[in-house]
């Protein structure tokens, strides 16, 4: 119904402004209703102003910029309806090292109240994990889990970001 959507929209839009400012240092994002007159029918547009650039629709941005904005929206929806845990599957795939680092710091900040399980191939992301588990298939088609030492991953990540 229209009031519920309107309330949710405005709260999520407020979160979105805050979260985008953190992920796009010096930039910001806005959620825009496509039909501000007709809350029953309106869709939601994502507008982004990366640092130094102008506001445009998310469609004209790069793969990594889109990925970061999409994550901001998912986090904003999550803040509207929080849960004590959050599972992320390879959300860092399109990001450069600097943005992976910013995302990692945002996750660390949220992790005070939310427990995260993060699937990743990225050595910079691995650095913020308290512990790492490796999925392996020694026997073809059958998954086993092993514990992985942080130190080795950390060394590789430090070297990779050098």
């Amino acid at each position, binding site marked *: 119904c229209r009031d*519920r*959507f309107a*309330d*949710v*929209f405005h709260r*999520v839009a407020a979160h979105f402004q805050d979260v985008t400012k953190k992920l796009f240092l010096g930039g910001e994002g806005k959620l825009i209703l*496509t039909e501000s007159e007709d809350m029953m029918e*309106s*869709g*939601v*547009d*994502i507008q982004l102003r990366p640092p130094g650039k102008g506001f445009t629709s998310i469609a004209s941005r790069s793969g990594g910029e*889109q*990925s970061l*904005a*999409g*994550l901001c*929206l*998912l986090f904003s*929806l*999550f803040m*509207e*309806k*929080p*849960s*004590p*845990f*959050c*599972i*992320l*599957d*390879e*959300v860092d795939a*399109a990001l450069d090292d600097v943005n992976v680092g910013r995302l990692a710091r945002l996750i660390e900040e949220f*992790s005070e109240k939310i*427990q*995260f*399980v*993060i*699937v*990743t*191939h990225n050595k910079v992301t*691995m650095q*913020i*994990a*308290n*512990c*790492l*588990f*490796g*999925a*392996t*298939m020694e*026997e*073809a*088609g*059958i*998954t086993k*889990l092993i514990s*992985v030492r942080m130190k080795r991953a950390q060394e590789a990540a430090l070297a990779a970001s050098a």
Partner: protein
Amino acid sequence: MVLLRLNLHGFKSFADPVEVQFPGRIVGVIGPNGCGKSNIVDAVRFVLGEQSLRLLRARKIDDLIFAGNIRRPATSMGEVGLTLDNSTRWLDIDYPEVEIRRMIQRDGESRYFLNGAAVRLKDIQKMFMDVGVNKGHYSVIGQGQVQMIVSASPEERRQYFEEAA
């Protein structure tokens, strides 16, 4: 820190019993392509009561149960258990630890258990909806889901907001 452990057996590529522990605030899961990391993510959605096969990356119920390999036969059912710390009683149930378990058979029948007692799906859904965990719809961001919300039409995107209402 509410997640304690996830136990999988017969679910997708987990032919043998596997226990995933969650001993920290940020737990990393790594490993080569195709080794089962996203299957762990699917298992969390599954045990929280997900009904949509699409969100479980399955086209039929069978796809959720170990299909067998060259040396081992397919299993007849799949099972996932998620154990949560409830020492703060954030879940409205009087146990310090809460284990939800879901078993599925090839005929599609699912059975649910709460600390070993058989319950209905809606008992589990009710317990979680009261605390914001709605089948993991916001708690689980699957592989490629970020790109999906970006390429969605403004109208499709609205549905995400309606689910959060």
